[in-house]
């Protein structure tokens, strides 16, 4: 302390401090940092307050301390990771209202291909968007929407005004609550400016193996699946337990037989959560089949978002009630933006297949998605502004278990462990979160959607966005053809799953939810 006091005498004198700064800036800064830290730890902030505002001293010291607060991998108090990945929603579309976050909803305007301008609007109780187009979230569509960083092409891709609709806080039954209760992220970008499969491939392995769309990995020699370079494989090699939990269609099948072998139905997740036997890493996926018809449970249009929300709630509550919650972290993410509007330009980052040409650049991240972490070590009611992607979660898992990088993606990613508060005492008391009703989607009928605000869909491919009331029911147009279907049921309809000897079962309340019987729903 003697040295500290002597040094403090230097910089408490403005003239000395200035002289020191001018003659030896490094020594000045080093000494100042030391003094600030010392001031906090020794309770001497009041002394430094003679030259600095006490709040500044404390904030500065706290900030600098925070930079060093990540425990070593061995001491990281997280043993159970759960990643729940839903489908197709952007940050602004779902959480643009979130206090403290960089979100925008009302008041944005977008110009369509015909030069008409449309304003963003609240979807309210339009939970499915039946009759609207599934917004374009393809490789090329994303680039049209990005429009060289202007973020104004959402109506010039193969999308209609559904893509510029948004949900306000009261409209969704669960995500708003969990986002406000724990730590939400407002700079979490999906890994790739592309569709479902490639993004889910990045979530599993930090790459899409060069896939730009939802193509299935058929190789010429008849082998099914990508090479198993996933986080699951890396964990298994290190002797760390892991499991993939599906509801109806297993995304893990993209890695062929090894992927299927590490998969279980989501009911097993609920059971293992309850008994405290979850593996070190669990990926949990919702029910995908029926996205086009509106009967999926993954929040992908045209599935009813309330079904997906009820599923998220069940997975989260199972985790909160698990004995493993105390040393666990559950990430809620969405695979991509789904073609819905967002206003933050995504970065280009190093990638195995980076290219200077945007049209073939796998380093171009996709638009922001809603993302939340649930953990006793997560800051409560906090919005983290750090740039993250799916690879940031991989990086934290790798960090915890001492695994090598999967690809340059997770090598260069910000480690999402930095978002946690490992310094403070963990808060083991789960917040009061709602239990949304467990509903099942109804198939979209052939009628034109008119929501409670009078917003209507498209007529013969023409975009209509302004609130119009009293319109007669209109037959929806035929869906636009896309190079590849967007939904995951191609794994089923193509015979891919059958060739892997996977026995598909349609999702029902009893296979999706924890306690379907309590609502009188039958399987």
């Amino acid at each position, binding site marked *: 302390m003697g040295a500290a006091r002597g040094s403090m005498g230097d910089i408490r004198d403005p003239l000395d401090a200035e002289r020191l700064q001018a003659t030896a800036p490094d020594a000045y800064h080093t000494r100042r940092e030391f003094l600030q830290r010392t001031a906090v730890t020794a309770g001497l902030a009041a002394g430094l307050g003679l030259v600095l505002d006490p709040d500044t001293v404390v904030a500065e010291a706290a900030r600098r301390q925070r930079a060093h607060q990540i425990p070593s991998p061995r001491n990281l108090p997280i043993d159970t990771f759960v990643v729940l990945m839903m489908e197709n929603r952007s940050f602004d579309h779902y959480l643009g209202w979130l206090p403290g976050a960089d979100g925008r909803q009302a008041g944005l305007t977008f110009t369509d291909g015909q030069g008409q301008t449309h304003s963003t609007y609240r979807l309210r109780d339009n939970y499915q968007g039946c009759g609207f187009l599934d917004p374009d979230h393809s490789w090329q569509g994303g680039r049209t929407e990005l429009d060289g960083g202007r973020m104004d092409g959402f109506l010039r891709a193969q999308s209609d005004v559904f893509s510029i609709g948004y949900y306000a806080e009261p409209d969704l039954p669960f995500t708003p609550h969990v986002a406000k209760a724990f730590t939400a992220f407002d700079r979490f970008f999906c890994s790739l400016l592309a569709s479902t499969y490639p993004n889910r491939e990045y979530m599993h392995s930090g790459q899409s193996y060069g896939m730009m769309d939802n193509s299935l990995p058929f190789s010429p020699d008849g082998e099914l699946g990508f090479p198993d370079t996933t986080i699951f494989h890396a964990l298994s090699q290190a002797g760390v337990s892991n499991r993939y939990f599906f509801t109806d269609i297993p995304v893990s099948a993209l890695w062929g037989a090894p992927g299927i072998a590490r998969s279980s139905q989501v009911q097993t997740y609920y059971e293992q959560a309850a008994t405290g036997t979850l593996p070190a890493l669990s990926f949990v996926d919702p029910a995908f089949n029926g996205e086009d018809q509106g009967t999926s449970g993954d929040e992908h249009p045209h599935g009813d978002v309330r079904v997906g929300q009820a599923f998220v709630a069940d997975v989260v509550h199972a985790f909160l009630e698990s004995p493993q919650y105390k040393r666990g972290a559950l990430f809620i993410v969405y695979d991509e933006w789904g073609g819905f509007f967002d206003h933050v330009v995504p970065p280009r980052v190093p990638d195995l297949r980076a290219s200077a040409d945007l049209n073939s650049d796998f380093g171009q991240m996709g638009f922001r998605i809603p993302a939340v972490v649930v953990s006793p070590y997560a800051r409560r009611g906090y919005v983290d*502004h750090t740039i993250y992607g799916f690879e940031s979660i991989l990086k934290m898992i790798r960090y915890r278990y001492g695994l090598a990088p999967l690809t340059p993606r997770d090598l260069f990613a910000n480690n999402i462990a930095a978002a946690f508060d490992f310094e403070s005492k963990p808060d083991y008391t789960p917040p009061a979160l709602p239990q949304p009703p467990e509903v099942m989607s109804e198939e979209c009928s052939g009628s034109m959607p008119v929501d409670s605000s009078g917003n209507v869909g498209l007529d013969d491919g023409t975009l209509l966005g302004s609130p119009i009331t009293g319109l007669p029911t209109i037959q929806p147009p035929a869906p636009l053809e896309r190079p590849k279907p967007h939904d995951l049921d191609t794994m089923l309809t193509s015979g891919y799953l059958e060739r892997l000897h996977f026995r598909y079962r349609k999702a029902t309340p009893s296979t999706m939810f924890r306690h379907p019987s309590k609502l009188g729903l039958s399987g």
Partner: protein
Amino acid sequence: MRVRVRLRGTAAVAAIATTTAALTVAFGGGLAGADSFNPVRLAITIAPVARLAKPLAITVNVSADAGALDTATAPLRIRAKLADECGGTFDTTPGPVLIDEPLNPQPATGQAYQATGHGSGDPTAYGQKTVCAFLEEEGDDRQFANDTVDPPMVDVSKPCTLAAARYDAARKALARAKRQLRHAKRRANRARLKKLVAKRSKTVARDRRAARSACGPGVPL
């Protein structure tokens, strides 16, 4: 906006981690070997308090594990802005530029890297601001690192700005009085000016103390 920048750096050879060979085989040579918590680190030194429209100096130290920057295909630039909130990229982060310069020297393949860049820019609005630093590739702005995990905050302080401005004005007034005194011939006038210089010297000392108190030691006065 004025931006003054000076970069100096040293590239140091370091042992390539043992994982490199295996990973290089696995990923066609595209993956760096070392993998610390952050393989590329940006350490920022900046005063926690700043004056409006006056130069705010920043020092950014870039360090990278061996091979961590090998995938760069164009010169890397260290870039930082002072913003209300960091954007996803340097280009889309609103706010005055503090530094935007190429790394000098550029990293060499397979070697650990360290360089320090200095720059400054003028804050354009009062309030708590975030320093958003990025290490990006020229051309397509590919981002190799950012300091958004724990970005330093700078308080562009109105009390500091006003106190420092008062001090500036007092210094100028004192300098003016001293100049007049040097050129004064008449005895009465010299006596008056001596008194004025003494008075303004006291004012300068008082305003300096006030400015230091409001700004802290990191702000040049």
